[in-house]
């Protein structure tokens, strides 16, 4: 491989890593909910769509940017609380699989409702971030991707700080570790769940804005859950660090595979390649790279 090819490979890898950050961003929304309530929330993608649609429609109606952000945030919070009330609370103490299926139903409801309210047209979303590539050591990097990665990193840092240092965050961790004990010391599970769903809503908003700016805001935005799921299983459902590492791994291998392996298959392998990578790793580590290995008690 000559120098030029190497440079090209590096460029592909960097591009992959940056979109990996975007995958991780969606996956983190899942992790938040999984950690505290043991639910794999399939509706996370629908929430991303809902947030992006709401935001873009507000902006298009002339609402100032930051006001739109605030209103969307409020809407996502309301959605989180609403879900806790109408879906989670009646299903408390039911099996995680039942809850998962409920979130599947939820994703249909949210997707349908988002489009019913805001229409089905495709919206362009311009966040004012330049898309011009710039050069570092001969590698071209998209400015947008870099900024998006930075925003994602900031969000992760904020979440980590939140979990480490705030009272509510510590309560989350207590719930994640042991629901019964948390109940016993008087933590209000319903509030914590509602808050966590609202937090996942915030993550969905950020993901929705960044992905929406990339792909346009439309129904297919909710399909990014399918990109996030392999990241999630690869990293382990309950690890934010896992989501990030797995996002990077999958982002990079996917792009490299597309360029170097794809042609042998006639291309288009990105639909399943991430799943293949995740599966191979899972066969060695059944609860992902960083997932807590639950030792069952008998």
């Amino acid at each position, binding site marked *: 491989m000559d120098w030029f090819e190497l440079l090209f490979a590096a460029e592909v890898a960097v591009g992959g890593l940056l979109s990996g950050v975007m995958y991780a961003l969606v996956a983190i929304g899942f992790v938040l909910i999984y950690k505290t309530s043991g639910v794999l929330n399939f509706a996370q993608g629908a929430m991303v769509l809902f947030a992006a649609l709401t935001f873009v429609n507000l902006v298009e109606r002339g609402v100032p940017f930051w006001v739109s952000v605030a209103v969307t945030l409020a809407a996502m919070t309301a959605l989180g609380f609403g879900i806790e009330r109408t879906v989670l609370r009646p299903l408390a103490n039911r099996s995680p699989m039942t809850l998962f299926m409920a979130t599947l139903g939820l994703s249909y409801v949210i997707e349908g409702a988002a489009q019913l309210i805001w229409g089905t047209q495709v919206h362009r979303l311009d966040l004012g971030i330049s898309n011009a590539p710039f050069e570092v050591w001969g590698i071209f990097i998209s400015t947008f991707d870099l900024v998006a990665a930075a925003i994602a990193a900031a969000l992760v840092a904020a979440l980590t700080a939140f979990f480490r240092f705030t009272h509510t965050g510590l309560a989350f961790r207590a719930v994640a570790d042991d629901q019964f004990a948390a109940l016993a010391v008087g933590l209000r599970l319903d509030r914590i769940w509602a808050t966590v769903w609202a937090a996942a809503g915030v993550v969905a908003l950020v993901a929705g804005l960044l992905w929406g700016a990339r792909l346009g805001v439309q129904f297919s935005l909710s399909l990014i859950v399918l990109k996030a799921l392999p990241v999630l299983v690869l990293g382990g459902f309950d690890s934010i660090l896992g989501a990030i590492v797995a996002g990077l791994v999958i982002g990079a291998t996917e792009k490299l595979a597309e360029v170097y392996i794809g042609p042998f298959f006639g291309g288009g392998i990105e639909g399943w390649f991430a799943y293949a990578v995740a599966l191979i790793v899972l066969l060695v580590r059944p609860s992902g790279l960083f997932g807590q290995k639950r*030792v*069952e*008690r*008998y």
Partner: protein
Amino acid sequence: MLSVLTGGLEAARLAQPPIAARVPELAPESIHAPHSALALEGVSLSFGGIHALRDVSFDLRPGEIRAVIGPNGAGKSSLVNVISGLYQADAGYIHLGGRRLRHLRPEALPKLGVARTFQNLALFPGLTVEQNVAAGLVFRRRHGLLAQLAGLPGARAEAAEVADRVRDVAGFLGITAHLHRLVSTLPYGLQKQVELARALVASPKVLLLDEPMAGMTATEKAEMAAHVRSARDRLGLATILIEHDIGVVMGLSDRIAVLDHGVKIADGTPPEVRRDPDVIRAYLGAEAA
């Protein structure tokens, strides 16, 4: 051909007069003697920082009811779980069927003649009592899915044998009347009986009972104790019995091992254990005081 299933042989076993359970006394150092039904040799197990078992040696003679007692978290269940291959010991060996094993595969248990019950009910709620008990015989099945679907004579005969065997055991434990009910609709005490039936149906040589009487009423406990005893008397089973009720344990067991914080602190006949100062301190402390 290992057609152990032949109802005749099993029926004969069930009908045998009580096997003299009192095996000659063994010196403590002959732990790994060939006539123990099961033995642990220096088994240690830890979870992260918690030492569930520390260098535990333990033997079980044929026809013996061997109680394991100790406070909550002492490592009793862990001991049984190591024997049944659900936990892997960090060190030590398991002696079973004349072999010295580092680790057992749980799948291999029934063929090694080991059956167990669980501290928390481990039945199949979606099945009837009859099906739950019959599940204990699946490991002997010789006819596959296709033979069953084709209704081959062999498969039918096997099904009939299974039915007979299930009925025998149900009769023995007095649960015949409930055979066709969904097991999840039974009261807790009966469910415990069904779990015992599922273990006994396999005609094991070694029976591991993890708190079979927990949460039962006094009458139910007495009934369960009678079953455990008569199973031993009739089948010559070697039984490990984990139980918190000291009264039951003293009355039922031939020997008692006491665990505390993963360490075996005493081992002997009920009177010996009752007198043991370590035991009194660690375990019976509250009652002795």
